[in-house]
């Protein structure tokens, strides 16, 4: 198996008026092609910081990050933008669709930034939309006319349209009820079956259970299996999951 993501000893320190914040303290992980993994952790655990670095929206203070073998921890802003445009797809909790634009235009938006020839855009958008099972009659609807579940599927199609190496999903079911959330997770599962690599970030164990593998992050560290069991046991003792 080829490792799509190889992260080694990642540190991220934020400087702010309040002082230094050590958000990641030596995170290492690998993700193989075609894997569906979940990264779990409570608020403030560093999972969003990790997500931002994996998504090339942020760069680590130290450590290395290889995406498809390319070391991106030292790239400049424009190179990172190109990586985002061609190798990564994002799915956000709040969908982030352009509200007045049609479904098609939303899905084609990333193609504006990836030098995709004009004549290939529509076929690629249609292909992406059919892989998330959105019925054709919605293609010309404005995105704000859709239901939450439909919006998130449009957002997933948008993430897929450039055929990225990795789809990064940040709490993709956070704004959905459990039934529509399940439909979205089924979509991810099907994409995994088609060979896509998916990294999903959540604080919800039920959502994480859809993944092939779950990594727990807490206080900027990836927990070992033993630490993980202790953490799970601790949360069961308290009768509630972490928030």
């Amino acid at each position: 198996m080829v490792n799509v993501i190889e992260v080694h000893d990642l540190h991220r320190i934020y400087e702010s008026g309040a002082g230094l914040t050590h958000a990641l303290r030596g995170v290492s992980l690998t993700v193989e092609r075609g894997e569906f993994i979940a990264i779990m952790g409570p608020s403030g655990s560093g999972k969003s910081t990790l997500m931002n670095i994996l998504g090339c929206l942020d760069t680590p203070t130290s450590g290395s990050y290889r995406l498809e073998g390319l070391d991106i921890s030292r790239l400049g802003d424009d190179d990172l933008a190109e990586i985002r445009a061609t190798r990564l797809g994002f799915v956000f909790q709040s969908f982030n669709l352009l509200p007045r634009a049609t479904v098609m235009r939303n899905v084609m938006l990333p193609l504006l930034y990836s030098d995709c020839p004009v004549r290939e855009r529509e076929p690629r958008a249609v292909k992406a939309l059919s892989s998330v099972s959105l019925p054709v009659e919605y293609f010309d609807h404005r995105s704000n006319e859709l239901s939450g579940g439909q919006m998130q599927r449009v957002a997933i199609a948008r993430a897929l349209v450039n055929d990225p190496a990795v789809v990064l999903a940040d709490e993709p079911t956070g704004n959905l009820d459990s039934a529509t959330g399940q439909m979205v997770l089924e979509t991810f599962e099907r994409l995994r079956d088609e060979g896509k690599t998916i990294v999903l970030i959540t604080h919800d164990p039920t959502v994480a259970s859809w993944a092939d593998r779950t990594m727990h992050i807490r206080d900027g560290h990836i927990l070992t299996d033993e630490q993980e069991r202790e953490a799970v046991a601790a949360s069961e003792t308290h009768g509630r999951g972490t928030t």
Partner: protein
Amino acid sequence: MRARDLLYETWQALTANRGRSMLTILGIVIGIAAVISMTALIGGIQNTIVSSLGLNQSREIYISVSAGRSVTEGDLERIRLSVPGYELVTGTVSGTSTITQGKKSANASITGVDQGYFTTSSIKLAHGRFFSDAEMKAGGMVAIIDQNAVKDLFGDADVQVVGKTVKLGNDEYSIVGVSESSGFSMGSYETVYLPRKTATSRIIGSDASISQIIGYAKPNVDAEALAASTKTFLVSYFNVPADKADDEVTVMSMQSMVDQFNTVMSAFSLIMGAVAGISLLVGGIGIMNMMLTNVTERIREIGLRKALGARSADITRQFLLESIALCVCGGLLGILVGYLGAWGLALIVRAMRPSLASMSPAISPAAVLTAVGISVAIGVVFGYSPARRAARLDPVESLHYQ
């Protein structure tokens, strides 16, 4: 990002906020409209005056000799004989009097003219006739007044006054013709022409010096060169000291007068342009304000576009183009409004000044190009800082901006 995509995105963004876009460009519309209508109006007036002065009659040469030297008909004869190239040389005397018609009276500027005068000058008759040779020789009690004088004395410029009489001082004169008013106003003085002999004997005094000499060059004679040789002749003829030659002997071809006039009008145009420029500055600040609001409102969209692979340069271009597009729309609309405004003003000017009745605004392609250029420049200048601000936003923070 392709230019076509950029234009489409810009179009989408501007039409999404149609009402606000329209209000924002109002400042630019007004500024450009002011520039266009003012320059068009001034250009139109300029064209009309130049043609009424007779730019095409550039055969005229105006000569005046000052500093107490009395010029007589004999001197004119010497010019005719000594300076080759003139078809005619005429002299006028001038003075002032009071013109009375019924109960109305006004100051009058009297020009005593001889036979050649109406050939050489660009004065055109609206009604009636010029003086006959007999009237010139005998010093007949006849007068030609201009349209402004008709309006002032008879109440309306269209009144038929040929054959009626007016009084100059205590003498009664019969009006034989009405001349078109030139674009120049003589202030509160009415323009009256008399045969020169009448003017000198009745009003100015028979010893009066000829104050203005008008020469009329033969066809195909270079007026500028003729003016120069006339000056040389007059300086030696009147024994004017070389250091005072320019002060005391003035010889001007029509062309140089038109040039001077155009310089004055251009300066006037420039001042109007500067005033309109202030309006454009205010409009530009409005654009900047709207673009800053626009960036703040679309922070999440900017974050999203960056996450999807937009480079900072793409974001800068997108917002800069929006600002330029706004300004260019404002500019084009301003040109249209300015054109209509110029016609509206032209109609008012026509109604107010009969002498400018044929005036139409002159919209020059240069003014239109300048207006578009200014619009683009305003878009760039006032859109750059908001666009850079948008481009510098951190994608992570802007994606989570509420």
